[in-house]
């Protein structure tokens, strides 16, 4: 199932969440513990942010022993690119129609 662009936008709207996502993208898989140590946010808050990122499919988790490991799923960003592509197609079509209209407006 495709996640809507709105869900992805909202998940990344929060600067802390975006920071976590960027860190996972840059540094690879991390535990909640490691992510908490790296930032200034409490562990329950980090877990909450990770849950929001997971709902948007921006991260995946896997349990190993007592720790849950998270990693980024950058392909989840694709709805954003789809959305931009949608508008590119939309405006090109409208430009064509505008050109037709301008021709008809000529005396």
């Amino acid at each position, binding site marked *: 199932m495709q996640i809507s662009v709105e869900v992805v*936008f909202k998940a990344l709207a929060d600067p802390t969440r975006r920071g976590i996502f960027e860190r996972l993208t840059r540094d690879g898989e991390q535990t909640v513990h490691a992510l908490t140590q790296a930032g200034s946010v409490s562990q329950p808050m980090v877990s909450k942010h990770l849950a929001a990122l997971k709902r948007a499919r921006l991260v995946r988790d896997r349990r190993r022993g007592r720790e849950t490991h998270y990693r980024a799923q950058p392909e989840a960003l694709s709805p954003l690119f789809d959305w931009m592509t949608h508008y590119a197609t939309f405006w090109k079509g409208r430009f064509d129609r505008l050109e037709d209209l301008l021709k008809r407006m000529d005396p």
Partner: protein
Amino acid sequence: MTTATRSLVIEREMPHPPEQVWRALTEGPLIKEWLMDNDFQPVVGHSFQFRSTPVPNWNGIIDSQVIVVEPNKKLSYSWGSLGLESVVVWTLVATEGGTLLRMEQSGFRADQEAAYKGANYGWQNFIGGLERVVSGLE
């Protein structure tokens, strides 16, 4: 990081004078012919809607507000749809053969009314960050 990567730009030269292109961009019945039904008025601050045929999961409505009106030169309005807000800027430049028309849609960001933390976060910054993330993949 350039502006182009953070926004959508379409440019086309039209063999018609800016005054004529301006009419097509700012007169409601003319806008309807090429873009969408609307209650647009070329008045800064005017709130209006573009209305198209509803489709599944979309009511067909774009909520907008006029931001800039510089006759025959520049027109800008916000473009809110599905809880996402962006800004559309039209620029008209007179050329020898007519008008160079440029459309830029940018500043994709979450709707101000969406009640969640970080709603005011600039989407341009976000797209910039996104670009870094994506280039990091390669």
